[in-house]
């Protein structure tokens, strides 16, 4: 945004000091809005519980909230449940969907279009349409309050988008590699397994990561299907700290920090590929 009057003295792409200040000011405001809620929770988590609602940034820093979380709540049970459910969902989702992603990326076959549409439409399914029949089904199978029930439920979310996202990643691998495999006498399964899959590892990792994060943060099914302190996942467990009647902000903030750190850490590594994967599949359909 050059100011037109003295454009001749500045090189292309340079900004006037005023424009530069404006740019930085806007970005600083936006960054503060983005970071503040997260930062505030982190700061609250190291305040003593009785000062949780204090406006001071730091007040008598202590790890009491974390100690409370470990000693007096089922936090680690919930954490374990979440890891178990999200982990198995991820592995199964990626495993089931990988060959499909490859097939729709490379071959044209009867039934491909309906399949692509099914994959797309199931991704926009609201949980509202499946939650009741799944709840009744799980009830009849005795899978309510069982991790397995939640895993099966999460696969309804994970499988379609894993297939969709992996198609996007396979599309970025040159077809010439498949051809060279065929020339060397590999059949399509061999090509997929020995040549394409190793090349697609980053894509698989990102897809798996996204499946994990989705299951990690799912609220509706987890709230409906899992009851009782020892069966909850993190999304359910966190709700027990802040209800209509009680607000244990200290424990809530400490738990939030412990839930968010691993997720955020991996996320910042994976995010570049994530967007590419999500939008590529959709635009090239």
């Amino acid at each position, binding site marked *: 945004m050059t100011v037109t009057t003295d454009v001749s003295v500045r090189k292309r792409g340079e900004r006037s000091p005023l424009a530069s200040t404006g740019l930085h000011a806007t970005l600083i405001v936006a960054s503060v809005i*983005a970071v503040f*809620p*997260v930062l505030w929770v982190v700061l609250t988590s190291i305040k003593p519980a009785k000062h949780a609602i204090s406006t001071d940034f730091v007040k008598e820093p202590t790890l009491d909230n974390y100690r409370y979380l470990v000693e007096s709540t089922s936090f680690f049970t919930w954490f374990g449940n979440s890891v178990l459910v999200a982990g198995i969902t991820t592995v199964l989702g990626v495993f*089931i969907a990988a060959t*499909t992603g490859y097939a729709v990326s490379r071959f044209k076959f009867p039934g491909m279009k309906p399949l692509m549409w099914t994959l797309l439409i199931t*991704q926009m399914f609201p*949980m509202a349409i499946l939650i009741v029949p799944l709840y009744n089904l799980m009830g009849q199978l005795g899978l309510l309050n069982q991790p397995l029930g939640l895993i099966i439920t999460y696969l309804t979310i994970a499988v379609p988008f894993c297939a969709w996202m992996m198609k996007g990643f396979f599309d970025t691998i040159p077809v010439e590699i*498949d051809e060279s495999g065929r020339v060397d006498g590999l059949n399509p399964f061999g090509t997929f397994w020995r040549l394409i899959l190793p090349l697609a590892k980053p894509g698989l990792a990102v897809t798996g990561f996204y499946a994990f994060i989705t299951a990690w943060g799912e609220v*509706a099914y987890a709230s409906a299907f899992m009851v009782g302190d020892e069966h909850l996942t993190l999304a359910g467990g966190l709700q027990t700290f802040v209800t209509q009647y009680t607000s244990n902000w200290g424990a809530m903030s400490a738990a939030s920090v412990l839930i*968010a750190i691993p997720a955020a850490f991996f996320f910042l590594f994976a995010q570049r590929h994530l967007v590419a994967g999500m939008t590529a599949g959709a635009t090239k359909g």
Partner: protein
Amino acid sequence: MAAHTSQSVAKAADDEGPDAPAVRGRSRMTDKRGGARRALATHWYAWAMIAPVVLVLGVIIGWPLVRGVYLSLTDANERNVARTIGANHIEATYKFVGLDNYADVLADPVFLQRLVWTITWTVLCVSITFALGLALATMLNRQFRGRAAYRMALILPWAVPGFVSVFAWRFLFNRDSGILNKLLDGGGISAIPWLDDPTWAKVSVIAVNVWLGVPFMMVALLGGLQSIPGELYEAAEMDGAAPWQRFRHITLPGLRAVSMTVILLSTIWTFNMFPVIFLLTRGGPGDSTEILVTQAFREAFVSSPRDFAGSATWGVLILALLMIFALVYRRSLRKQGEVW
């Protein structure tokens, strides 16, 4: 058949097109079974590869979906569905009632209320998120010091799991002890009932959803911006185009494909956004922030007795609405000559 390269398989399928059987019939085969066998020989790899997904989707999505539609035609609730209490298994006693549930829901003014608010919520969230995401992406697309740091900071809301952020916001919004009201108090402004007043609650849920959604928009649009060739801007500048003209005639058209995608995704996500509403306000105060999906959830899991048939009805209606939206959207893309 192993000699087929993927390319030639793709080409063969391309050449065949819709009238392929006729061509094939003329040249070689006369009976249908031969055609089917040939198709199987050509495509069995592909079919074998998609088999796991087709199977899984059929069992865990297809079957429940059919059951869901069926339940919406019955009077099922928690008292008459099949259930096991201790050692006793009680058979289902609900019965088929036809379209009664649909008539009830559609005749009830609540449906229209929810629909209007859901659409308002979706449109406002998506448009504000898109505008902010585009503005931030345009700024981050320039060269300046500290760009990576800003980017990192702005992405943070996306990196934290959604339900955690929503609790963080509940903490900030808290009427008596939340930091926002304390800051306002410090500035001499009286406390705002963020989550306790119907109008403010609506503002709050939209604000939180925008806060959650901007990073994805920003990163996706930034990717789009970076794929626009710099020469276009140079040429435009040579021709004397003002910054606004460059933005209007180069940037926006260049972002069309990625915008279409992110707007579609974001609309569907927002329309179905359960956690923000459920965890922030539980649909309250009263039922002022209840959207369609939280309403469906409330019918089956919050209200008593649990009304499974009613919830299934809401579910089917929501799905129908989304399908209509997707069809309209696809048609508008087609009109503009998109491939998809």
